[in-house]
């Protein structure tokens, strides 16, 4: 049996810009969740999630020791921060869209706990 969880329950996200390219990355709160995120988030899924916001390709890179996944979104800022009419000129909210994606986990899977109002960090 399986259930669905939003990525945001498993990983922190941040994004930044360089010209007309953004990099949007996920840091699992619990290092052991890297594998399931890696398997279920191929670049095609991420590109699909962003729709018309991303005109170019999506590349993916893994950091095996710090346990993080970096997605590079090409042509994702309408020319770049200094030219775009978009409200989020620097693409700093793109991580949230990534976190809206869901992953399939076993029914008995427990996401990382929330302690004192924040996710527990486990490495």
């Amino acid at each position: 049996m399986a259930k669905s969880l939003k990525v945001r329950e498993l990983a922190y996200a941040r994004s930044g810009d360089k010209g007309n390219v953004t990099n949007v990355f996920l840091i699992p709160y619990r290092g052991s969740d890297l594998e399931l995120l890696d398997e279920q988030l191929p670049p095609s899924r991420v590109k699909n999630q962003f729709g018309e916001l991303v005109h170019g390709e999506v590349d993916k890179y893994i950091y095996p020791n710090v346990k993080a996944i970096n997605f590079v979104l090409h042509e994702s800022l309408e020319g770049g921060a200094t030219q775009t009419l978009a409200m989020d000129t620097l693409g700093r909210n793109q991580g949230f869209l990534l976190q809206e994606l869901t992953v399939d986990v076993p029914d008995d899977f427990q996401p990382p706990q929330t302690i004192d109002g924040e996710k527990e960090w486990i490495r």
Partner: protein
Amino acid sequence: MTQDRSIRIGSGSANELDHIFRTAKLVKQDDIDYLCCDRMSETTLNNAIKRKNDDPTKGYGRNLAEFFEQILPLAYEQDITIIGNFGQANPEAGGKKVAEIAAELELYDLDVCSITGNDVSDVYQNGGLTTDGPLTGQTDDPTALEGFVGAHVYSGLQPMVEALENDADVILNGRSSDAAMYAAPSVFEFDWAFDDWDKVATGHCVGHLLECGVHGTGGNIADPGYVNIPDLADLGPPIAEVSSDGEFFVTKPPDTGGKVSELTVTAQLLYEVEDPEHYYHPDVVANFKHASLEQVEENKVRVTGITGKPKPEKLKVNIIADGGFKGSIIMGWGGSNALEKAELQRTEMLEQRLDNINELLESDVEILDSKINILGYDAIFEEQSPELEGGLNEAFVRTAIKTKTREEAERVLNFLTMDGFWGPVGGIEPIKQIQPLMEVYSALISRDDVEMQTNYESPDRPGSSEEPAADEVTG
């Protein structure tokens, strides 16, 4: 030098507008050896080039004086060397200004070095730049750009290390690699060879983790319900403790807000990096992929595992051109049907206005591009906005336009103003803004076409007839 030495490098700022109060607190309370400061972006460089064009004695950072008047006496007292790109488009003039401030503060033995040679606009004009190669931010082949402002090469370590060897206390750069500013102290102090690629890459990783200031210690991180960052109003800037063997720690001053944790350092490590195995700098191609982080105590993280490969064949150039103007006007309404009101304004009023603008204005205004979004609803995520659960208490329509001239943007915004009042009931007074736009391109230049120079200044003693030290040419 003993092999067990370490140095402490503090981050002084992430850009020109970064808070000076924070830097002053760092310099007063912490025992750092170097203060490195990023004071540039493409926008600041654009403005600085124009200031220099208007007045050849200007073109350095607009708030250079404010910064040094506050920070210089504190740094001098603690024997802290300051390295920063305060020079922007005119480092030599910036250096003279710092020497002047030092004289006013009676710090006569201060040695100031400004580094020049980043402006390669003439090479651009002569068609000497190429656009093939591993670049980020590259758009089209930038030849004969309309509205060309300047072409500045990213310079690296060597002039800064030379300045440190000559006992400079303050080093002003133009368009240097930000990370290189933070790598220079380690290369100098520990005698790392320029071709010890792993060490040079490590020095640049120190830079990468510190160059964004508090962005690496809790700024742009807090995520309510998921990640907490204490005391946002007093975030402590990052400090790196670097050892001669290349191991380093990231920490922050005590009695400050923010956090240095494996999560915050990871978040800075990955920021603005595309392929972690090939992170290009003027002096090295760094590999961050196999970095390891370890929380050794509260607010202190050890960083290891950085390696590097030989520096790129060519240097990266930042090309700036004027790109017209962006005008925006925000209209808004309150009430339980605020979202419907905003949507009504968008479809029944604003879209029609933009479609018919020239008939309505009875003149030729060219709207090159436009966007109409509802703040709180679809302004950030646009077509990918998640479903709203429930309505909004208040909603705002933002109309943004791109025009070639400021006058055209003004005409359109002035014309639209009354529509903020003539739409649905409750329209607030519209808020208008016009900003210049900029086109930015990357290109490559041969190292043979770049000549960096170090220029030395000393503060004048009252009544002295000494002249400033002569320029020295470096390779």
